[in-house]
């Protein structure tokens, strides 16, 4: 017959161990809750960035295509103009040539300005690269959190991402607010601000 006191003590110890285990599990679930909440917030931000990339890439490409179309049209007019100059020269109609040359110079200047504006529009690559880096960083962060959750649930510590691994992933240089069209401040206001300090 077991000693009732010893049995009572043994039961107390077992219950205490069980309580500790439950506390531990509850604590781990509480820890898991934050990464899930954070991930839920990050997915829409990443999606928004990807939508922005698609929208802004399309708009910038459209702008460039419009300019290229105009350049091609102007080039065709230029070729036609040169042919007319050749004809006028052959017929000794020199008075007709000067205004035609002036108009061709004007067209060439406009084409040059259009080429510069295409270069301006090409900045979309830098902006969308930053937006993509931001989206990628958010995705990597979600991946890290999911790995951590998986590690805790499976008791597999190797699934938990190391601090070094986590820091290495953060080594991306980008501006999370990069936007092709949404400029909030006028340059003259910025200039005034900087002039004020001098």
């Amino acid at each position, binding site marked *: 017959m077991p000693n009732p006191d010893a049995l009572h003590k043994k039961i107390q110890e077992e219950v205490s161990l069980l309580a500790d285990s439950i506390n531990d599990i509850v604590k781990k679930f509480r820890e898991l809750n934050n990464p899930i909440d954070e991930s839920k917030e990050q997915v829409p931000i990443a999606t928004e960035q990807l939508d922005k990339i698609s929208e802004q890439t399309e708009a910038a490409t459209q702008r460039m295509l419009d300019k290229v179309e105009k350049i091609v049209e102007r080039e065709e007019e230029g070729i036609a103009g040169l042919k007319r100059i050749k004809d006028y020269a052959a017929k000794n109609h020199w008075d007709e040539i000067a205004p035609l040359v002036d108009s061709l110079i004007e067209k060439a200047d406009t084409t040059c300005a259009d080429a510069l504006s295409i270069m*301006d529009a090409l900045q979309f690559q830098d902006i969308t690269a930053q937006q993509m880096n931001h989206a990628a960083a958010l995705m990597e962060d979600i991946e890290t959190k999911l790995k951590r959750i998986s590690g805790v649930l499976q008791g597999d510590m190797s699934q938990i991402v190391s601090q070094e691994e986590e820091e290495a992933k953060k080594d991306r240089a980008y*501006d999370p*607010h*990069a936007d*092709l069209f949404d400029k909030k*401040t006028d*340059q003259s206001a*910025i200039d005034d601000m*900087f002039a004020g300090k001098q």
Partner: protein
Amino acid sequence: MPQTIMVVDDSTTVVKFVSFSLKNSGFLVVSACDGMDAIEKISTMSENVDLVITDLNMPNLDGYGLILALRENEKHSRTPIIILSSEDREDDRIRGMEVGASSYLVKPFKSSLLLNEVSKYLTKEEVTT
């Protein structure tokens, strides 16, 4: 003799675009891919750098770090520095001003705007838009 401008940006597209606009206006352009690279190049260059144009978000050493480092160097304590960034928030401009930047341009920008900003610090005769 043409004046020398250093362009610091981790985006090769921006470096190419800015360099094209500046070279087209008669400036000599030296480029660097981040703040650290810029400091290394500036310290080994024989010619003087008359103006620096820098991005803010860059690996290794960002734009703020670069400006601070240049301002601590006697030779570049007064060199005009233009920040070129897609950060369009007042906090960033204030910080840029505090570390010693001369001016701030928000990306994307028109090349004419960049040249106008440059002409405030370098002789206007050199700039022909």
